[in-house]
């Protein structure tokens, strides 16, 4: 039974629930206790020790992140003993940390640097012993800088317990201790899916996205190049946050204006190809149902998920939809359909994506993704890199006027927008499949049962008398649960949506730092708000998509679609 206790923190008495930690009790009452290894949605690790406090009656200081409150506990967080110890711990970390703050990719938002500022570290008396280990630049998406690792273990925690990929973990002991892939291998040598959830939780610059902003600046500067950009659904609800506004701020119009200011020739919307995905994928599902194809069919929009299934469930690849992700459908169309329509040679078109994702950087380099005869998508920037470009360009984001996406690849419906949240692809598909199958108009567009942050969501949808069982998983740990059921034949689903990241793309590995449950919820609410305000909310009603079929693709799953919009997968194994 939950009860409350009185604890005294720095002389002030607070009444708090008895099942929380000292750190949490302090936080709820406006007292910040420094922390590095602690992260809100993770289990307690108590490694870094910068959260130590003085508790009356305890011989030593105690870690406030792992010590529960109890009745009458007397805590001091600012005594000389605590302050000196915290300063010493920070000094010890710094002595083994490269002094590259000026040039570090995390210099704007490094948690260690911030603590050094808050705790008045002015001098490092300890011997500098900065390591000189090689960087891991083996992948197209993620760079690991082991020199900057403070061994907090947040990345390993998310890699094991959320994603169950088990790539990063602590090796060796003592001074040789390191958090790396197995046997010191590089990320490209192991079954890393490049989801970037480790990046999202790293307090320092020890693991970060591969920065592609310089290449994008160069393309924008190159007069030979016609540079078009596409923006993923979820970025419209996270870029304002990256630029300092509250999580969940919707900024679709400002986003378009900002991209024009950076100098992009055309500003298009991945929501357009999200709608297109629904038509292809919806028809693929109906085709499988009619012809007795492999079921359940599983969505294929999330490149981290694709890499995960290729490594972990290679025997199940037939379950995957053959549809490319919206990003890659866009790239293929930009260098074929759009090139033809605008009279620009595809070789002169540079396609840039703004994505919530690190795995997208890898996806665009996959050998299958060259349907146009060129690499379909040239560069992928995360929401964070986009933010850095805007700051470099001196764009005062919050005061920008709104503007509209360019046509024709900028026209979209609410169904395309909700791709950004877990359950969104499923909901968008159901809106279309229902109307195609039944020939009736859907009365209520919202499929509440597939929304929200529940790890695995199941629903039975009535398609005018035909019950269809669907499932939605987000985060690879949840995906694994569903895959185990599919593998052993106990799943009776028809259609399954999987997103690699918790919350879907709104919680992607390329999103603003400090992404946690509350920020995910705020962004998710915002995505559904975007949908609600769209004049069109069903993918098959998108007039630009209809026109595209009429003028170019002819029909879903047709010859042209097969060539440009569908792909194949590789058995990778572990």
């Amino acid at each position, binding site marked *: 039974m939950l009860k409350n206790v009185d604890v005294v923190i720095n002389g002030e008495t607070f009444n708090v629930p008895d099942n929380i930690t000292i750190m949490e009790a302090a936080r709820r009452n406006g007292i910040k206790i420094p922390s590095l290894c602690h992260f809100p949605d993770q289990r307690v690790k108590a490694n870094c*020790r910068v959260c130590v406090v003085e508790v009356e009656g305890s011989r*030593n200081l105690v870690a406030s992140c792992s010590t529960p409150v109890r009745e009458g506990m007397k805590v001091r967080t600012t005594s000389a003993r605590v302050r000196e110890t915290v300063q010493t711990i920070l000094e010890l970390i710094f002595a083994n940390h490269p002094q590259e703050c000026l040039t570090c990719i995390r210099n704007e938002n490094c948690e260690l640097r911030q603590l050094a500022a808050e705790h008045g570290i002015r001098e490092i008396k300890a*011997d500098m012993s900065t390591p000189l280990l090689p960087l891991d630049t083996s992948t197209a998406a993620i760079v690991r800088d082991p020199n900057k690792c403070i*061994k907090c273990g947040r990345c390993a925690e998310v890699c094991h317990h959320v994603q169950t990929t088990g790539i990063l973990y602590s090796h060796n*002991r003592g001074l040789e*201790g390191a958090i790396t892939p197995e046997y010191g291998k590089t990320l490209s040598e192991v079954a890393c899916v490049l989801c970037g959830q480790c990046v999202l939780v790293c307090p320092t610059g020890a693991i970060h996205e591969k920065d592609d902003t310089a290449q994008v600046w160069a393309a924008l500067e190159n007069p030979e190049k016609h540079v078009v950009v596409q923006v993923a659904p979820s970025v419209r609800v996270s870029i304002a946050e990256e630029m300092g506004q509250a999580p969940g701020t919707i900024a679709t119009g400002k986003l378009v204006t900002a991209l024009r200011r950076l100098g992009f020739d055309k500003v298009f919307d991945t929501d357009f190809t999200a709608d297109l995905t629904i038509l292809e994928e919806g028809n693929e599902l109906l085709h499988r149902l009619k012809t007795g194809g492999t079921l359940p069919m599983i969505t294929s929009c999330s490149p981290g998920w694709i890499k995960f299934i290729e490594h972990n469930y290679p025997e199940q690849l037939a379950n995957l939809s053959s549809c490319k992700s919206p990003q890659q459908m866009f790239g293929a169309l930009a260098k074929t359909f759009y090139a033809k329509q605008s009279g620009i040679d595809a070789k002169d078109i540079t396609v840039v994506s703004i994505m919530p994702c690190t795995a997208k950087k890898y996806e665009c380099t996959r050998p299958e993704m060259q349907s146009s005869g060129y690499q379909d998508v040239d560069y992928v920037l995360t929401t964070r890199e986009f933010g850095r470009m805007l700051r470099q360009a001196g764009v005062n984001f919050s005061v920008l006027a709104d503007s509209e996406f360019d046509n024709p690849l900028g026209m979209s419906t609410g169904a395309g927008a909700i791709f950004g949240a877990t359950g969104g692809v499923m909901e968008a598909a159901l809106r279309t499949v229902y109307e195609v199958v039944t020939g009736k108009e859907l009365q209520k567009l919202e499929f509440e049962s597939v929304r929200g942050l529940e790890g695995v969501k199941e629903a039975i949808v009535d398609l005018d008398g035909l019950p269809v069982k669907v499932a939605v998983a987000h985060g690879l740990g949840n995906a694994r649960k569903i895959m185990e059921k599919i593998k052993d034949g106990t799943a009776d689903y028809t259609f399954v949506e999987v997103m690699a990241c918790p919350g879907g793309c709104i919680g992607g590995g390329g999103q603003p730092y400090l992404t946690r449950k509350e920020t995910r919820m705020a962004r998710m609410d915002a995505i559904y708000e975007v949908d609600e305000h769209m004049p069109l909310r069903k993918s098959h009603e998108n007039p630009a998509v209809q026109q595209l079929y009429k003028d170019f693709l002819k029909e879903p799953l047709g010859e042209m679609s097969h060539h440009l919009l569908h792909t194949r997968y590789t058995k990778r194994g572990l």
Partner: protein
Amino acid sequence: MTTLQKIKDFDKVFNFGSYDGSVSLEEYRMTGGYEALRKVLQDPQAATEEICAAGLRGRGGAAFPAGTKLKMMQTNVETERYLVCNADEGEPGTFKDRFIMNHIPFQLLEGLTIAAILAGSSNAYIYIRHEYPAAQAMIRQSIAEAQAAGLLGENILGSGVSVNLKIFSGAGSYLCGEETAMLSSIEGKKGRPRVKPPFPIESGLWGKPTLINNVETLANIPVIIAKGADWYKGLGTKDSPGTKLISLSGDVRNRGLYEVPFGTTFREIIENYGGGMKEVYTLKAVNIGGASGVVVPPEELDCPMEYGVCAARGITIGSGAVYVMDERRSILDNVQNRVNFFLHESCGKCTPCREGLRQAIRIIERVLAGQATLKDLSNLERYTKCMQEASFCGLGQAAGNSLLSSLKYFRKEYEESCVDSAQNIRERGDMC
């Protein structure tokens, strides 16, 4: 054997027989062995009370009251529960548990069986360090014999109560002697300590309530039950009843293992049991409590070995290792050796221990090379205090004990090596 007879045989908890062999099951039973187990099976409640009344404290180092821990275990409603005997005797200079396992294995097994019965654990493990192959063999054989005699395993002495005991071999890590790291090790995980609370007594092996006791603690139990709490309290002091096994080593005449009643002073241990200093050299320092213990000068040796008094004076009885150094020994060498030991054994999980030791060894190497400054010494003190105050587990907290105590008592030796000490400046004549 004369040195073992400082206290009368009747007043001894341990009877090691002869050094060469082990006390067989037959011999052990002939001298009253396994009578305690019979008593426990008849009246377990009284047995628990006897252990509590005897004031037995854990002999692994933390000195937690064993009866209290047992009672905490008994109040837990969970039915799946474990007993783990900590035989990962890794503290340098400590060899008491090895002696018990090699020479009186049945006294340990009886104590272990009794504790498991009282704790309601039908499954028990004994975690023996990898470096003790002889002890592992001895315990393995003794388990088989005890099982054959109906004293262990299913349906003990026809009572219907079962205790299944398994041996688990460590793999060489000192840290796995820390109770939660040991549990992780048994579970097949990396031997790193876990967050406390929850304590093992609430959530231990496989997340189930687990009673963890040291070899020496468990070996005390049959004697307490057989001879009674009053007899036991007649040994030692009010604060610390009973006796302690002391592993005496270093520059004393008679190195060895001694059973010493609590309350005996450290000087008496060295003089009366150890026979005083070897050869003609004088006593310089004594390291008490192993590598994680303190280094004290001769002036501190009149302190009685008693948990309360020692704690107040900053002396760690720990595992009961007493290492004696004569005037030829260098404190700095000794400290360097210890810091290197901890560097090797630190798991690297928490910042103070990992980074503090990294800095400590550099400073000590500078001191030994005659290149340190007085500033280095104050930094060393600061890092060591930080390790003590803020480390995750006992290893890091204790790693600085010998550093801090040596800085306190033998600071002169450090300062003599500092380039900017007053004496060195004077000798070089570069004072303005």
